[in-house]
């Protein structure tokens, strides 16, 4: 699973003395430091904050760059190599530079039964060469009810057709709500029976 970034490991192991100096975290942006420390305070063992801390640093740096990892390491008091090893385990932590808009297209079973592979190719081709986008085929995102679907900067949309792709990318680029008519959060539950008679009768 791990897409090991050798450069990252090499740097973590054999950086310059300043880079390895975990006692001088001067370079860490104050908001990032505050956020990481807030996460650390939530756990009996502050090391538990590794994932939220890396996620926060990734938001600031765009990816888990050697700098990002060193900054987290300095605040958390662990080695950069430790965090680099953690980061490579998780699909959402980027160990290579990526575009700032993430588009995860689910290509797992239920979505693929509804044409997800063609959808993924359409998205990939439409964003080809555009440095703003990080398009990835993804495992089941837990929204097979709107298959085929994608998560655009963390927002779930579907069911998608290849015709939706240009508008989807444009919405993301412009910072607009992505495909407002296809947002998962606006959907009612499929179970007709779930919304009880009480509700329909309009009791308070």
């Amino acid at each position, binding site marked *: 699973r791990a897409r090991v970034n050798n450069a990252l490991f090499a740097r973590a192991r054999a950086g310059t003395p300043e880079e390895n100096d975990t006692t001088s975290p001067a370079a860490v942006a104050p908001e990032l430091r505050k956020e990481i420390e807030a996460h650390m305070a939530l756990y009996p063992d502050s090391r538990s904050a590794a994932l939220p801390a890396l996620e926060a640093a990734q938001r600031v740096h765009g990816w888990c760059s050697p700098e990002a990892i060193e900054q987290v390491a300095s605040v958390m008091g662990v080695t950069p190599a430790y965090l680099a090893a953690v980061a490579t385990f998780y699909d*959402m932590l980027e160990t290579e530079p990526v575009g700032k808009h993430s588009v995860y297209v689910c290509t797992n079973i239920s979505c693929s039964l509804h044409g997800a592979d063609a959808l993924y190719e359409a998205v990939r081709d439409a964003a080809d060469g555009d440095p703003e986008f990080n398009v990835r085929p993804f495992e089941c995102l837990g929204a097979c009810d709107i298959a085929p679907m994608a998560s655009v900067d963390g927002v779930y949309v579907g069911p998608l057709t290849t015709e939706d792709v240009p508008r989807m990318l444009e919405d993301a680029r412009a910072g607009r709500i992505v495909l407002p008519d296809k947002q998962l959060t606006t959907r009612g539950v499929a179970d007709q029976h779930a919304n009880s008679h009480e509700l329909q009768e309009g009791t308070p």
Partner: protein
Amino acid sequence: MTEALLFKNIDEPGLSTLEVYAKRGGYESLRKALAMSPEAVLAELEASGLRGRGGAGFAMGKKVSFLPKGSIDKYLVCNADESEPGTFKDRELMQKSPHVLIEGIVIASYAAGATRSFIYIRGEYVHQADVLDAALVEAREAGYVGEDILGSGHSLSLVVHRGAGAYICGEETGLLDSLEGKRGNPRLKPPFPANQGLYQGPTLINNVETLATVPAIVAMGGERYAKLGTETSKGTKLVSVSGHVQRPGNYEIELGIPSREIVYGLAGGPPPGREVKCWFPGGSSAPVLTADDLDLPYDFDSLARAGSMLGSGAIIVVDDSTPIIDVALKVAKFYAHESCGKCTPCREGTNWTVKMLERIDSGEATPMDIEIMASVQEHIIGNCLCVLGDAMAMPIGSMIAKFRDEFEAHIEQARAHSGLGASPVAEGALV
């Protein structure tokens, strides 16, 4: 169908807020539970017969009772990783009714004597984690979470912890390592989490749906809850139906109803003119069943007797327009990608199965390869640290067993297509 318990009023506007949830009787079960002794609450859970909704179906009350007694630090962890392909029930529940989960966690922590709790939610569920965080702020302000809850003397901290994308973190010990800030590699069991879990302390770990059912059990009483469902599969269950059905989505059913009623009655069955070819009754780790099995009662034991499992309650329907090889490849690729690599049979076996299926698809295989592939699956089962390897081997093995003719026909067609000609076996050379 009986009354919905978990999905009752699920689409009521504002149900995710404390105001509306309280208007619907929210946190009344917590009050009731805190007025009882922890032992009495545990007795209700045991009487309910509630079995875990995350995959393994272990009795929840029994799991609580395994935790050591006394005043040592105990933890409760809610498994909201929901990454078994086909499963999306916890997502809808957390998004629309976050307080029912929080209420369930607080009651369960009281019964278990746990004072620190965590919801480990998959990182992809950004919106649902935000909803939970907002609900948690309200619950803390109202005194339902925190120090000395409602003057009972019971205290509980609760943190929503976001994962970062790794299926294996749904496995409970992988999850615990991940929650400790490590790579999410599964641990050797025993020791079980009930004895040595998070930070080596006794830990109760349950799925979202399991914990969210607790308030209903306390409200109606364990015995009444146990009247729902079948003898060994009590209560209601959320099922996620997807794939080739006309009305995909989540449904709350009483355990034991005919599977056909779910696939056709509720979800509308395959599109007109299509037939069910096979279906996964419990996520993509479950061995596939065929159209002949649709009259099976949908409950833990009936599905186990039929050689499959209820798993997470995710029904994936495949109709007769899809070649079985496509289904097998998707499933195998997923597990190959998600294998953490710690055990050889899993790491090598999943990768090797993918390569084998690709050979079949490209016309380089002979029917003998089906034999080999089937035996690889048998060698994976039971030989790994966690059950991820099995989770591939079981469905792939079932597809080979049930659709062998189609695999063989595919091999010959693909060979003809690729110009290799009929396989030696087909010509009788190797028979």
